[in-house]
């Protein structure tokens, strides 16, 4: 009996060479259907037995993090003083940004001039991150055969019915009054990005919030009348492409010392700042669409 169950060492070796067995893991693998309830039980057992391990892990984590904070605090004491005017960070870089910024970029908001002209490559990367995130969310949450069940579809239909019957008049009136104001404010922030605080990103976020408000009060069907998935993708892609081409042109001329034909305009006027205004508009549109896209995908799984 014992002999039958226990394989000889040679047999183990043969199995190992045949790839049936690995060292230190002699059990066979079985392919079963997943039984979630069983898994749950197993998991609870596992947690119960692993309590001590978990506590040890927790204590270790707290310890590591406290040491970490301690080291960082010690670092902070050795850093240059807060608010001092002779910090290493205020050097020739800052001087040129501030003193020649208006002349060289045409934007009176020096931060906007800096991120969209001096260090525009970073900002290009940043818009790409946003684009990437929205594509990822589409990949994850847009309905496909992996992430929807029949029950959900039924529930959704009920939701739609509910939405139609729902008539919260005060809410609707006020939201419909507020949404255009949000749009206007957002557009103002985007267009004035180069002469006052704000810019494409914050303005776009405000417009996006307006869309979200409108959609959450009136239902998404109303949005879908003029804002479909196709339009969403097209706006995003076209704006980002414009951004890419404009910036590519500007990088190319700059690096090869070619003349730049884009006029700077008089500083402080709305139509000034060279490429900054169109870039801000592009970014604003991308951000507004993206934020509405996030909302729509997070709630319904479609735009």
């Amino acid at each position, binding site marked *: 009996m014992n002999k039958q169950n226990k394989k000889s060492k040679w047999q183990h070796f043969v199995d190992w060479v045949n*790839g049936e067995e690995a060292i230190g893991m002699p059990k066979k693998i079985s392919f079963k259907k997943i039984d979630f309830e069983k898994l749950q039980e197993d998991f609870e057992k596992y947690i119960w037995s692993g309590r001590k391990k978990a506590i040890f892990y927790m204590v270790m984590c707290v310890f590591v993090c406290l040491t970490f904070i301690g080291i960082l605090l010690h670092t902070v004491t050795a850093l240059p003083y807060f608010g001092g005017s002779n910090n290493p960070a205020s050097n020739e870089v800052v001087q040129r940004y501030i003193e020649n910024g208006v002349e060289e970029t045409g934007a009176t908001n020096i931060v906007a001039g800096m991120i969209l002209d001096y260090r525009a490559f970073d900002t290009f990367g940043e818009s790409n991150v946003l684009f990437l995130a929205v594509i990822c969310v589409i990949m994850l949450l847009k309905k496909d055969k992996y992430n929807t069940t029949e029950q959900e579809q039924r529930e959704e239909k009920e939701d739609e019915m509910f939405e139609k019957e729902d008539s919260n008049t005060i809410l609707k009136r006020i939201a419909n009054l507020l949404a255009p104001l949000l749009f206007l404010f957002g557009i103002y922030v985007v267009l004035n990005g180069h002469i006052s605080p704000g810019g494409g990103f914050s303005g776009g976020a405000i417009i996006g919030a307006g869309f979200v408000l409108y959609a959450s009060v009136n239902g998404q069907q109303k949005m879908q009348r003029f804002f479909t998935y196709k339009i969403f993708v097209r706006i995003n892609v076209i704006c980002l*492409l414009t951004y890419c081409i404009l910036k590519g042109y500007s990088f190319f001329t700059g690096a090869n010392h070619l003349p730049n034909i884009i006029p700077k305009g008089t500083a402080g006027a709305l139509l000034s700042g060279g490429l900054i205004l169109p870039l801000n508009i592009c970014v604003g549109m991308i951000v507004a669409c993206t934020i509405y896209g996030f909302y729509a995908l997070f709630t319904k799984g479609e735009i």
Partner: protein
Amino acid sequence: MESVNYIHNIPFISIFLTMFGGIITPLLSKGKLAQKINFIIVCIVGILSAVLLVSVWKNEQSFTFMMGHFPAPWGNELRAGPLEALMALTFSFVMANTLLGGAKFVQKDILPEKQNLYFVMINLLFGSMLALIYTNDIFTAYVFLEINTIASCAIIMAKGTGESIAATLHYLIICLLGSGLFLIGISLLYSITGHLLMPNIQQSIIQLTKTGEYAFPFAVVIGMIIIGISIKSAVFPFHFMLASAHPAATPPSSSILSGLVLKSFIILNIKMFYCVFTIDLIRSLRITNVLFLFGLIGMVVGSVSALKETRIKHMLAYSSAAQIGYIYMGLGLGNHAGMVAACFHILAHAATKAMLFICAGGLMSVSQGSDSIHDLRGAAHRNLMAGIGFTVGGLSMVGVPLTAGFVSKLYFASATIYSPQKMVITLLTLAVSMILNAMYFIPSAIAIWTPVEKKEEYTKPSRKMEIGIGIFIVTNFFLGICYKPIIDMIELGIRLL
């Protein structure tokens, strides 16, 4: 007006071309068209990088490229030399080949309506890796690091199964930990030096180390940045994320992830060593010793974990962890020769591991999708090319002469001469790790070649995959035989860095 030097525009053009490709891809409704465009773009980038490599190698020079109208401390910059060009060439070569060999898997594993989005990810991932190779600015590095993180997570989860999404989440959390450390590192660095471009930071670091100011913050900054990047490149204690991420993803994704993405972080680490902190500073703070230690542990632990696996993709995932250990060991030796060996190993491993994952995918697809080595018996007879590729890759991982893996191990061993105190332990660990590698690759190779009688239904492997694997095999032998000029290029590149 001076004439335009088109060679110098190549880094900029390759980054923008891939980004451009990524951006227009969602408009294409068909996955196959997206795949073709993606493939063409990668090929163009490869050719451009080859031209760049020839040019910089001939002239023995590196150059910086101004992104915009403003010179160094004010605007962004790119930088290219022989090392960067060589890496870009390798990356595009491996990428193109993986896409060629893995085309079938993408079509099979990913829902048709989402295939074009997968290629958006591939394009942007490739663009971000190129940007990480060429960048000369640490904040740009951070932004592209994040692009890299999100895109690599996206290609893991593209399969859409629960397991792959759970693996993605695990991978994402560890990557975000790494980027968080990197971000606070660069903010501290900015507050001390006041610059964001690598050469300017280096100048002010040299000055500050002379006067001895901010000694403690420097140590913390270097620690944070190096640890942050190392976490992202799956160095020893963090290699667990690989184990769940690779098996869950579709084969080309695992190839790209293991062969290229992790490598791009290591290249960033090397750039940090040479272009930001000087190598003397790194050595005097004993950072190299820490990396050396983790590299050694990683080599052994990775191999031992691989030995315990009966599933082929898990085995390959742990084997990647061990190979990353080799590279960090090379960096940790702290001398020029070790660095060269590490860089060569990046190339060798990128070519080999990408091939191994594609071959494993190919073998699995003729064995009803099962990934246990037991079920793969006889798979090599059903898919001959994948079988040969897997065997060659395994031999290269073990370090049999004439393969790429042998050369890098040879150079690692000879690099220890320059740091005698680490010599014995390095050689010992190399020997142990080679034996361990042999212990798990050879049984699996035997298993796939063992003939079995039972006839199973399977689809014929596609021609594209065979071509891809064939090119990979040739590359492997090429790296193993004609390694001399490549080593020269790497040496020159590191000297010019």
